[in-house]
């Protein structure tokens, strides 16, 4: 009787050890139930922690305003932006989960790399034109300065306006070009479309070039409010209602 019990105990111990062995060797290593784990499908292209992909076409996600990131996910799901791989990823997900994913990336604080382009390699006339447009706009064509919505530091505005610095030139050119050809749209009224349609291609390249040569300021976080100042009347922004509050 005693030996049967001992046999069973030994058997059980053996089974437990075997199970442990297989767990240690067979299961995925270091699995933790985190948002980082749940967003592997994102970071595979957008880089670890959403720091940006290596090739210039997968932009940084980390630290962008949550409302902006969420709007982009919805833009892909609802056909205002077009990239098949993104659309297939977001289609099965609920609004609540998309918002959680957006918030997760918005809260990741990573240092920014240096400016992606060296100003020395760019034609001075292009840089000058770009700087003029970015900081002062063009009143004759009713084009506001970038800073008027994207903040004095150009690091964006909470919760819906993205920062414009630290982005690759290829990405900036591709986005402005996509706005020009209506391949990229935002919630109506689409204020960015309103701005882009007043600029010609060389203006867009100039502003993208200048932006890509700028280093980030000390404080890289998006502004919480825009300073009140006399500025050009802005078109309404369906994607960023907070801009309405700017005088």
């Amino acid at each position: 009787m005693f030996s049967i019990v001992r046999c069973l105990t030994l058997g059980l111990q053996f089974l437990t050890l075997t199970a442990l062995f297989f767990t240690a060797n067979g299961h995925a290593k270091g699995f933790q139930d985190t948002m980082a784990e749940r967003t592997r499908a994102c970071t595979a292209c957008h880089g670890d922690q959403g720091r940006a992909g290596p090739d210039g076409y997968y932009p940084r996600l980390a630290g962008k305003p949550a409302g902006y990131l969420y709007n982009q996910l919805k833009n892909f799901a609802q056909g205002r932006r077009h990239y098949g791989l993104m659309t297939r990823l977001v289609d099965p997900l609920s609004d609540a989960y998309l918002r959680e994913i957006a918030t997760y990336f918005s809260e990741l604080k990573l240092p920014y790399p240096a400016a992606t382009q060296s100003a020395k390699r760019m034609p001075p006339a292009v840089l000058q034109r770009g700087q003029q447009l970015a900081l002062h706009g063009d009143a004759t064509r009713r084009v506001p300065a970038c800073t008027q919505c994207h903040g004095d530091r150009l690091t964006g505005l909470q919760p819906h306006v993205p920062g414009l610095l630290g982005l690759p030139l290829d990405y900036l050119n591709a986005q402005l070009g996509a706005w020009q050809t209506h391949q990229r749209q935002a919630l109506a009224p689409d204020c960015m479309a309103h701005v882009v349609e007043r600029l010609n291609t060389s203006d867009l390249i100039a502003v993208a070039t200048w932006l890509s040569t700028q280093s980030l300021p000390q404080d890289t976080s998006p502004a919480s409010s825009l300073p009140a100042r006399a500025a050009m009347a802005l078109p309404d922004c369906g994607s960023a209602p907070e801009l309405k509050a700017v005088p």
Partner: protein
Amino acid sequence: MKGQRIGLCFAGIGLLVCAALVADNFADGVDVSTPSPSHLTPPPSAETIDKGRYLIQAGNCIACHTARGGAAMSGGRAIETPFGTVYSSNLTPDPATGIGLWNAQHFWRAMHHGRSRDGRLLAPAFPYNHTTLITRDDTDAMFAWLITQAAVAKAPPAHTLQWPVGTQAALAVWRSLYFKPGTYTPHAGRDAEWNRGAYLVQGLGHCAACHSPRNALGASGAVNDLSGGLMPVVNWTAPSLLDNAQTGLAETPLTDIQTLLQTGKSGHHHTSGPMGEVVQYSTQYLQPADLQAMAVYLKSQARLAQDKPGPTTPAASRRLLPDVPTRGADLYDKHCAECHGEQGLGVAGAYSALAGHRAVLQTDTTNLVQTVLYGGYPPATAGNPRPFGMPPYILTLDDKDIAAVLTHLRTQWGNSAPEVTPLEVNRIRASQGK
């Protein structure tokens, strides 16, 4: 003289065929002269409207009748077929572009006979071979819900079907060959639960629209044919629900089938691709009793099929190119092992085990290739609100890489399935990206 007589003979036969086609397709005798507008007399109760909402969900009507970014049920979604593109119609009560001028008789005729308000024959992308089984009570409730929603003025684009496919004459011929209006007759030898399941699966659920093979003229199998099929254009395979090697329903506990339909996930199995969409928009909202009824019916069909001898699964071929095993193993270690584990055991609740997983061992590798090329998430549902996902590999791995890594996981850890060829990967890669 003789030639004339033969000519007359043919003309006569032609006329007779035409008359038969007209009678077969247009003489359903539904009286639609009841006064439009649209409203039901007596006005539907709140319960009826709510029942209609539920039935519309059970039919997953919203998935096809909503365009990307468009208002729910306002139509205009492009449904790609091998014969061209069909655009779904606007089912909101807009008088000019939707069903605002319809009455309950029109709606019944559309669901039961596949004809529009003006009597036109509808394109069978609308699965009316299934909806014909829905009871009059149920179609009235569905109509009551539709007609009480907000109207959206939006005309769908015209179908772009190859001539003569979309013509009324071609549709008449097609319907005479493949469509017969019917009703669901309860099976006397089965209980109410089984019959409810059969009614939902064969009617509203229109499961066989994907889970049965389509012929060269685009006709799917019978409403109770669940033997699986390749979905044209989208290139996913709807597995056979009868074959134990493909879905194993005969041996799956009822609660697991129900859980999969309700949450999109059950154990190491989850839904993806078109079935993920079905769970997302339809089955996750169904009452547990209805899901259980469907599970009971599906399982009984799988059991019946199991008793019949089927084709045996081909043994794993051994004609691997010399570098495939090492290449596959290297790629697996680099791209897959972190989540799916060195021994293919996955992580419970997050990443599928690949050892012994049915989806890995299928003879038809379409869905496996889709999964590796495009990655993706299972649907976010109330029961699985924050799913784990898989990255796409279409940009990182070429056809040979994907073939090698799939061959690797089909031949490891006791798995024994035939190799995957680069050609199989290329077929899916090349067919997408439109």
